């Protein structure tokens, strides 16, 4: 739950998150619309005020021209000096009324109208300041309205981006859970309209389903193989125990035992490979588990214990790991085999030639043992130890001691005893 909040907060602050991209897009679209509308309104209002200005100037010029035609005297309010007129106005063909919008002084624009009467140009000018000011006010209102709209639309977009964001986060979370081994995890798309997120959700769900199906098939197959192999093997083992004691019987029993170990190891590896194994944790005294494991193995090993080691681990799997490592030390190394338990670290070493370089470089490989030892074991013991260590969350490393001998170091996840 807390992790969800932290993740949501991180998503909120991340500038690359989809939310902010959507918000930026919406803001840009709003601005573009506002700009286009603003320009159009500005232009049409300007054109209209020009038309009104021309009409007013023409209405003012008409009587002046009439009076001049009648009396030869121009109204003193009109302009007759061509030097006082804008040159652009004079360049026009003034046989008819010509207009000129004079914005040479930006704060006080004028609308000129002029007509030539018998070669004498008569002009009037109308002040257009109020039109200009109302146009400026209109522009200001458009900008203000656009800003107000942005102030509403941006938070709305941020909010509207949340549901798809949440669905995407759910997809990511579920995919991670599946990767962590929870194959029952599903996003669920029931009752949702079909969109890209539903598409990816159902794709992830069907991928998880296919994975689960394959894993189950593999597990079933492994279990069936186990059954088919173990049933005759058990008959063989029990029958060989019933044989009268003789040298031949010993040979049979020995080979039966080898066969049994091989079958069990292969089945264990296939279970580990299927990833179906999960640890069964308990807080246990490490020294006792290790001691019993060595004792049951029936092999010699010198056990040294430092302190009162306790670990939260799966004792059965730990037993397997220790037994495999000690057996391996006896098979490929030379005695004395030493087992040291210190805290949550278990070190098993022998005094033989050490691990082959291949193993140190690539880790244990099944059915690949050093050429010198071919015929002694199948290289499965260490593979299993490594696989089981992974299941219980422990770290198993192999190295050679400087003074000779193979050293296997098993580091369990630390945990101290809660009471005393």
């Amino acid at each position, binding site marked *: 739950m807390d992790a969800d909040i932290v993740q949501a907060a991180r998503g909120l602050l991340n500038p690359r998150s989809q939310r902010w991209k959507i918000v930026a897009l919406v803001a840009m679209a709003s601005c573009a619309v506002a700009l286009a509308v603003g320009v159009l309104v500005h232009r049409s209002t300007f054109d209209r005020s020009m038309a009104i200005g021309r009409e007013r100037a023409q209405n003012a010029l008409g009587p002046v021209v009439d009076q001049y035609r009648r009396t030869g005297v121009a109204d003193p309010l009109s302009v007759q000096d061509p030097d006082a007129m804008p040159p652009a106005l004079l360049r026009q063909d003034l046989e008819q009324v010509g207009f000129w919008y004079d914005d040479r002084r930006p704060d006080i624009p004028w609308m000129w109208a002029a007509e030539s009467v018998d070669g004498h140009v008569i002009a009037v000018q109308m002040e257009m300041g109020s039109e200009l000011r109302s146009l400026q006010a209109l522009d200001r209102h458009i900008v203000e309205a656009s800003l107000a709209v942005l102030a509403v639309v941006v938070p709305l977009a941020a909010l509207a981006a949340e549901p798809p964001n949440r669905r995407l986060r759910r997809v990511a979370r579920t995919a991670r859970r599946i990767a962590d081994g929870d194959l029952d995890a599903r996003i669920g798309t029931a009752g949702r309209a079909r969109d890209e997120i539903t598409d990816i959700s159902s794709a992830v769900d069907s991928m998880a389903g296919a994975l689960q199906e394959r894993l189950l098939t593999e597990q079933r197959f492994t279990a069936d193989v186990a059954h088919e192999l173990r*049933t005759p093997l058990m008959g063989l083992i*029990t029958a060989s125990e019933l044989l009268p004691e003789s040298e031949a019987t010993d040979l049979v029993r020995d080979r039966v035992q080898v066969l049994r170990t091989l079958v069990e190891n292969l089945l264990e590896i296939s279970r580990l490979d299927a990833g179906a194994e999960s640890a069964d944790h308990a807080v246990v005294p490490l020294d006792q588990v290790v001691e019993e494991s060595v004792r049951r193995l029936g092999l010699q090993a010198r056990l040294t214990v430092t302190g009162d080691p306790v670990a939260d681990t799966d004792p059965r799997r730990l037993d397997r790991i220790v037994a495999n490592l000690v057996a391996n030390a006896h098979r490929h190394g030379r005695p004395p085999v030493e087992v040291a338990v210190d805290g949550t670290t278990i070190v098993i070493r022998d005094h033989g030639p050490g691990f082959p370089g291949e193993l140190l470089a690539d880790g244990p490989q099944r059915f690949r043992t050093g050429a010198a030892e071919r015929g002694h074991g199948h290289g499965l013991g260490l593979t299993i130890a490594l696989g089981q260590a992974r299941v219980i969350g422990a770290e198993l490393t192999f190295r050679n001691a400087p003074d000779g001998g193979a050293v296997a170091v098993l580091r369990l996840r630390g945990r101290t005893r809660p009471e005393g």
Partner: protein
Amino acid sequence: MSDLVATSGPSAPVTVLLVEDDEVIRKTVGMALERYGYAVTSAGDGLTGLELFRDGRHDLLLLDVMLPGLDGIGLCRRVRESSLVPILMMSARGDSLDVVSGLEAGADDYVAKPVDTAVLVARIRSLLRRATFSAAAEEPPKPGAGLIFGDLTIDTDGLEVFRDGEQVALAPTELRLLLEFAANPGIVLDRQTLLRNVWDYGWDGDSRVVDLCVQRLRKKIGAERIETVRGFGYKLRR
């Protein structure tokens, strides 16, 4: 741990009913157990096994999980309807489904095939010890004849358990587990301790055996009586 040999007087050999479909295993296990002094009756399928069980008296049932017709789990459930006889399951598949459903059906313990005769006999002895441990009266607890925990009364002499005055029928392992709890009331017992004291396992024991037996015991004596202490184990509520 005194190595009590199953009471094998010539007058009353311990009888084992073996239900196993593989003919070689059935024959060889039967012969091996007979060498250890057990009287073995065997059946090749579940229904014959059930008939044999109903016809005669058996001290212990040794059941394979995969059987034609009525499988080992179904057979175990049918037997448990009327009897508290110790049941040991044998599973060759080794997947947890087999183990869990067998124990849920009421089996006391399981062994994975292939199993050495010595190991099989050790498991059988441990189970019989639980079934007959009133006779082998050297086990704890002995604090008094009647222990009372809420509505639960345990008669440690007659080995009878009563809930609200009504007798509760407990299978030997369930009874042994309850007595282990009763000897340590209010104390948390971890799964490993229970595995060792009740099932005679070392660290290699499967703690699911404990969990499933506790589940069965709870159904019989009331779920709230045994408390789960997460990550550690269980304790009996006073």
